[in-house]
């Protein structure tokens, strides 16, 4: 399949009083049509900024973002508005991403009105009911307000709203992290089913490694604005090459007994993304650090087919 999304050397810098904050610092990746790219990393690694930059919800500093062959960063405002019909986002917090003064019907129909997809009110309401059924919301919620519903149902509204314009691509920014496990599983299954039925392409942003493994075809691991490793999900989990990836994987508490693997506890915490030196960004926490790591920023390179890593001394080599 062809790539729906191609991102080349995307950068997003923020000017702060203490210096330049390099939130996303030159990352490149592709997403095939109908597939899911999982983006994992800890708070502040730039994963949400990446998702928002691609949709131009925040303006990237530089780079290229091709959607179906067209560079989104070159579009003017009215072209961008049209293009947004094909790309949507589902937010993390279903409590703050829905307008409290609008009913479920109004929330879901808003994008349809903005993009002038259905002008007839009766037909539009029919479409809203159809969408509600798709995401598993009962018809009786049609005229209710978000505060009357629980987190799982609210997240379903967010999904219905994203689907209302028949998008090709959806950025899912931590869509289940605010939900309880039993509800989380319901929403994950729903997103998977929708992908299969509607041939959706996802960028799935999360900090939860077991969720990303379950959900994604490819996974990119981010650390301080850089992609440090990228590979097919299965490959990444079985043969991690970057020391940060192995530490992340070993830090997951596994809900079963008797298969305790040696835990790698990495020391220290993420450093500030402001005015970073030209060295490997993980160097000061890495247990395998050598002098060379402090001399330059390692490039993301393909070690074996489809497996990329940004480390001077990848593990297992």
């Amino acid at each position, binding site marked *: 399949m062809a790539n729906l999304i191609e991102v080349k050397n995307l950068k997003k810098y923020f000017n702060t009083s203490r210096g330049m904050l390099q939130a996303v610092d030159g990352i490149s990746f592709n997403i095939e049509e109908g597939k899911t790219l999982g983006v994992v990393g*800890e*708070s502040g690694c730039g994963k949400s900024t990446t998702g928002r930059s691609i949709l131009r919800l925040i303006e990237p500093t530089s780079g290229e973002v091709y959607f179906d062959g067209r560079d989104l960063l070159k579009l003017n405002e009215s072209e961008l508005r049209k293009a947004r019909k094909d790309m949507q986002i589902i937010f993390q917090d279903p409590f703050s991403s829905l307008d409290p003064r609008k009913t479920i019907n109004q929330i879901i129909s808003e994008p349809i009105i903005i993009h002038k997809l259905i002008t007839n009110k009766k037909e539009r309401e029919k479409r809203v009911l159809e969408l509600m059924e798709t995401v598993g919301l009962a018809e009786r919620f049609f005229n209710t307000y978000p505060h009357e519903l*629980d*987190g*799982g149902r609210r997240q379903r509204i967010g999904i219905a709203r994203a689907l209302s314009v028949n998008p090709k691509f959806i950025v899912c920014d931590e869509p289940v992290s605010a939900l*309880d*496990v*039993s*509800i*989380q*599983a*319901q929403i*994950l*299954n729903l997103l998977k089913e929708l992908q299969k039925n509607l041939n959706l392409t996802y960028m799935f942003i999360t*900090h939860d*490694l*077991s*969720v990303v*493994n*379950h*959900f994604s075809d490819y996974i990119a691991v981010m650390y301080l604005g850089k992609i440090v490793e990228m590979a097919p*999900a*299965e490959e990444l*989990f079985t043969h991690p090459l970057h020391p940060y990836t192995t*530490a*992340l994987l*070993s*830090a*997951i*508490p*596994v*809900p*079963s*007994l008797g298969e305790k693997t040696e*835990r790698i*506890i*990495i020391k220290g*915490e*993420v450093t500030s993304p402001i005015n970073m030196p030209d060295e490997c960004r993980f160097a000061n926490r890495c247990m395998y650090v050598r002098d060379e790591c402090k001399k330059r920023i390692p490039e993301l390179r393909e070690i074996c087919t489809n497996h990329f890593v940004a480390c001077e001394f990848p593990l297992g080599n």
Partner: protein
Amino acid sequence: MKDKNNILNIENLVVYYETENGIIKAVNGIDLQLKKKKSIGLVGETGAGKTTTALAMLRLIPDPPGVIKSGVIELDGENILDKNTKELERIRGKDIAMIFQDPMTALNPVFTVGEQIAESILLHENVTKSEANKRAKEMLELVGISGYRVNDYPHQFSGGMKQRVVIAIALACHPKLLIADEPTTALDVTIQAQVLELMNELREKYETSLLMITHDLGIVAEVCDEVAVMYAGRIVEKGTLEDIFNETKHPYTEGLFNSLPNIKDRKAMLKPIRGLMPDPANLPVGCSFSPRCLYATDKCREKKPVPRWISDTHMVECTAYDDPLFHIERGK
């Protein structure tokens, strides 16, 4: 179940929130015992009554609307529910301490971390101010923060470091029982691993018993000896780690496990629990889980289940086991 080896003994605890819109039955008669130096995980989803149970142990239920309707909560043989305000002040922070979920709001922004650690030492022990400050600095170093930061304010620390400070405050007076309410939920995985390791180390050092409230079965497997699964204000299953993880009996516990993505088998389909938690102001007549349970029969919907001991350690509260042939099929 009076046992000298128990640090904690809860019997038939009932806590309601009596609001204008009806009575919210948060905790509906739970029994829980914890042996000295052991740790138990209290697992369940939002609204199961985990935090209400913990707050009842500290007598911190907001009143009104919260009311402890009945029950016994014995800490090292003494009933906390009989204590007056003065006595409670001596117990809180000294015999029983709590770590809250969100370290950002658990610390006072206008006091230095040193002052906040020293505060509980000064309150509970007969020491001078300089002695307390010295101990505060030692505690800070013990949780892995350099002693020279004792005069820093909470905002100067990251989330993981703040949680370390909270742990230092909780353990400053060597409590007999530590209650940790989702202590790592707000932290990143690598920091979570650091904090859990630290808690395990310190618990061993001070021989503290631990009640860990969490929704994460992975964390339970890592730090707890025993598990109690809560649903709609009842403990529906409890036992040792082996009992719960390998001999799962309650359909709800089974549902929890099946909802988790399996890190070893990424192709496996998730099997969520259908439906939603019942409204605690309007619980079903029979088993509270019956509307969501795949195995529920009419009997389940009519009759409240009673505790059933399968072994000395393993309890399940499920009517379906009236049928000796009943068993669940936990998806592997």
